[in-house]
């Protein structure tokens, strides 16, 4: 628990990444935006092993179909670190979401999504302690 939990945001579209990041920042989160799964796993690894001074993520938001490391691969990775992961994707099918949930995803959103619902889910899994 911290006053500014860190959210690792993996999204390859710059406009959407910027929008979600700014909204999460507005509601009090520290956002680390990356553009693909590989970068996400890299950040995770660096921070979890204390190689980087950056804050370790308390939550991960990621798309599924990204170049260089699929979201599913990322899921398997984050599971090791027990970091709650939310899936946000344009390619959502019931089967894909089922697979994601079985791998430990805490929520799945299909684009276009309700931004407030997303923020609410973030609050649930990475609560902020009042500062």
């Amino acid at each position, binding site marked *: 628990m911290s006053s500014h939990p860190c959210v690792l945001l993996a999204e390859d579209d710059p406009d959407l990444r910027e929008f979600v990041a700014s909204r999460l920042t507005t509601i009090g989160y520290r956002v680390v935006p990356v553009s693909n799964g590989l970068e996400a796993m890299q950040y995770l690894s660096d921070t979890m092993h204390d190689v980087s001074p950056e804050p370790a993520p308390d939550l991960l938001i990621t798309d599924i*179909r990204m170049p260089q490391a699929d979201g599913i691969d990322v899921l398997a990775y984050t599971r090791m670190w027990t970091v709650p992961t939310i899936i946000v994707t344009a390619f959502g099918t019931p089967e894909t979401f089922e697979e994601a949930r079985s791998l430990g995803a805490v929520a799945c959103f299909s*684009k276009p999504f309700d931004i407030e619902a997303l923020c609410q889910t973030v609050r649930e899994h990475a609560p902020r302690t009042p500062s």
Partner: protein
Amino acid sequence: MRLTAKLTAALLVAICAVALVYGDIEVRRQTAAFEAQLEESQRTVGRLFRPMLARTWRNEGELSALYLVQFTRQMLREESVESKFDLRWVWLDDAASARRLPLVALPALAAVATNQELTVTTRAPDGSARLVSYVPLPVTPADGRRGALEISSSLQPVRAYTAASRARLLATLAVGIAVLAGLSALIGMWLVGRPVRRLAEVARQIGAGDLSARPGVRQRDELGYLAREMTRMANQLTAANTRVAKETRAKLQAIEHMRHADRLATIGKLASGVAHELGTPLAVVSGRAQLLAEGKVSTTEVIPFAASIKKQADRMAAIIRQLMDFARHAGGERSPLDLTKLVRDAANMLRTLAKESRVDIDVEAHGRPVIAPVDASQFQQVLSNLVVNAIHAMPDGGTITMSISRERAMPPGESDQRWYACVRVRDDGVGIPAEIGEHIFEPFFTTKEPGEGSGLGLAVSHGIIADHDGWIEATSKPGQGTCFSVYVPTEIDQPIG
């Protein structure tokens, strides 16, 4: 006509031979009969005269006898008979005077000396042929000399008659041949020449494509039979023609249907990609609008929010327009277009679809335009097919590289190099095994599961590029990937790219 001439000539030669042989035999027979008759007449004359001569010789002596002969000879000369007999008394020895010398040489007359009659043919001193008969006289003069009556007549009349007969025969033959030849020519022309010419004419017309021509030859013979068969053949050709025309129409229709089906499939795939692609900008629009509507945006942020919404809306409009552009053109109009732009557009349209399969699309281009006369939506259809195939070749994801270039190349089956625009779609997927390599462009050939693909994509693409006077090549190594190269003829007068 040559046929008739050959037949006629053969026939006439046979007739000639037979006629000549028969004629000759007949003439010879007649001549022989004539000569036999003459011989008989000569001998008869001799025999009739002999007793009287013998009596005169015995009673009045040699001189009177010889005078009698002379007298009779004179009388015979004055008779106007056809073959004048010349009656003479001749001695059968060398001592005879010229008057009493036989016409025939003595050695030949040995038989006469033994009291036998003899008839021979000989030449007179003036060269003419004569028939000479010898009738010996049973008179033995005191000096033991042998003599005989010589009755001779010219064979010239006979010879003349023979010659005339032969001439008549030849003349008749000649006339006959001429008449027969003429008749045969006429009949040949009527029965063979005209119908054959007519049949040849009809054959020519049919060969030139006019299948309505029919031979009007109705003879009840071999030519009529030929004409009937030709009619039957022409009817069958007409029927076959109609069948072929129908089949060609059906085939063209089938190709059209195939192209249309593939087009719809492509539109469907692109639409699916578009639907997914719209999700992202729509998320921004809906998110920002929602926050605005709920009053959660500060005054200073309103304008940037609105600007972002507009930007995403424009983005969505562009995405939709691309798809509509592709869907709208029914195809068929070709114009010089920059293939680099077409390739980039196709890559943009297909990028989201590719992303779903974890595939990237890269575009390599020089930057200089590569212009070629193409139908934009048909070309896009080809590129879509190739990209979709490449995506399927990489089930675990990968990268598709599309490149455009201008190069000199030789069309398959030709020996000239020309300038072509070449678009390559390369993947590093599973590759195409050698044994299916030659089948990939066949319609309905597919290695996918039923329902996954129609197997039309490459066949239709092949047809479209062929219509553009180009061709598609595939090079592949199993396990190393495939490269499809699309060649389209390019304008000559553009800067070398």
